[in-house]
């Protein structure tokens, strides 16, 4: 994606290139920010900060190393986690039922706005392997990573018994490992 090069060029066309990048990627990145924060307003703030950050550091992006979506995803998750941590101290966090999270928790290939060449091989493998998990296991494993939650934090946020969370995570990781192992060979 040569957009990064054009953004990093710091010339008159850079802002237009950032706008183009935003147009191509913001829906996917906003989806990520929303999954991390669980709150539209924070997700939008995180999105704003993330793209301003990309504007500053596009020159560090190296196409040979990571696909652009993975590189931006790391930035967006980081900003979103910052907001989540900062704001969690301000709110009385009402527990959310797991079922509220359970709609459409993995993006299908079909709604990807970008050519899959922009996604990493790992993303393709992880998507397929996650889709083989039971929906609840998939959701608990995904939220553990995306929100950086411990077993007990997950149990609290999802109103589930701690033992259930531990079991689902353990089984989910075992299945993921077996599945990802098959992808690697």
């Amino acid at each position, binding site marked *: 994606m040569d957009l990064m090069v054009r953004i990093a060029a*710091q010339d008159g066309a850079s*802002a237009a290139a*950032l*706008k183009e990048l*935003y147009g191509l990627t*913001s*829906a*996917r990145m*906003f*989806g*990520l920010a*929303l999954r991390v924060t669980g709150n539209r307003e924070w*997700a*939008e703030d995180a*999105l*704003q900060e993330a793209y*301003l*950050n990309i*504007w*500053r*550091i596009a*020159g560090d992006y*190296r196409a*040979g*190393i*990571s696909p652009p*979506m*993975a*590189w931006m*995803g*790391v*930035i967006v998750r*980081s900003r979103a*986690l910052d907001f989540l941590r900062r704001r969690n101290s301000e709110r009385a966090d009402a527990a959310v039922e797991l079922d509220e999270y359970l709609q*459409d928790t*993995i*993006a299908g290939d079909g*709604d*990807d706005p970008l050519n899959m060449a922009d*996604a*990493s091989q*790992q*993303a393709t*493998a*992880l*998507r397929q392997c996650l889709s083989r998990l039971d929906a609840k296991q998939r959701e608990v494993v*995904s939220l*553990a*990573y*995306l929100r*950086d*939650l*411990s*077993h007990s934090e997950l149990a609290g946020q999802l109103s589930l018994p701690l033992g259930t969370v531990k079991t689902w*995570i353990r089984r989910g*990781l*075992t299945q*993921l*490992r077996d599945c990802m192992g098959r992808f*690697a060979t």
Partner: protein
Amino acid sequence: MNLLRHPDLLDQIAAAHALGTLRGGARRRFEGMARENPGIRSRALLWQETFTAFTEIQPAMLPNPQVWQRIENLLPATRKSVLPAATTSADLLLTLRRALGLWRGAAVAGGLAAAVAVVVGVRLDQQLGQRDVALAQAQQQGEQLTAQIAAQARIEYVAVLQDDKQAGSVLVTFDPAKRALTLKRVGDYREGDDKSLELWALPPGQAPKSLGLLGAGAVARLTAAEGEVAPSPVLAITLEPKGGAPAGGGPTGPIVFKGALLKTEI
């Protein structure tokens, strides 16, 4: 217990570490083992890379159009910088503190945005004590010293070079400030007595550039300038005649290990 003798258990722990659910003492012990042991470290890195993909597969949602308006309005005031913006000591301390505190953590404020895997890789390889000292000094001595530490400690490179069967690997770290290129062998690959392994930088559009030979030991230390290493997105190791490929002629043997070179800033 030697985790390397229990690959299933190692994978289970490395996966829980990468996911973030391995906490407390277990997490610290595992990270200690990973620092000591390249085999454990490479499993930790691979799982970290795998889970980075979680950020790529979330369902898309349209943000409010006002978000772009806000970004556009802020662009003129958002200076693009060669170094990540750490213009005040407060910013920089925050950056350092996060680098110290967020093991797993993803990108650090001010523009650390290489892959998560890299951050962890470097964390695993770094001597945490030094950073603690640096942070304490920075807090005591103010902005000037803080800036110096930042200038010295900013950039490192790491690469995990794999063979095509993923049976072995070579971990590469490069500290441009010290011009120190360190290679650690993982796994039991052995070249024949009449052969040498040679490390190459592969700068785009240019001929491969030799960075030196690996000795027979587990660790090889080479010297290289940043300009020789940094422009290459990929490093590779080839199997060459004893003593290396003829000078100036490029590699003559097959690629045994290769992998992406990742830059990170702490």
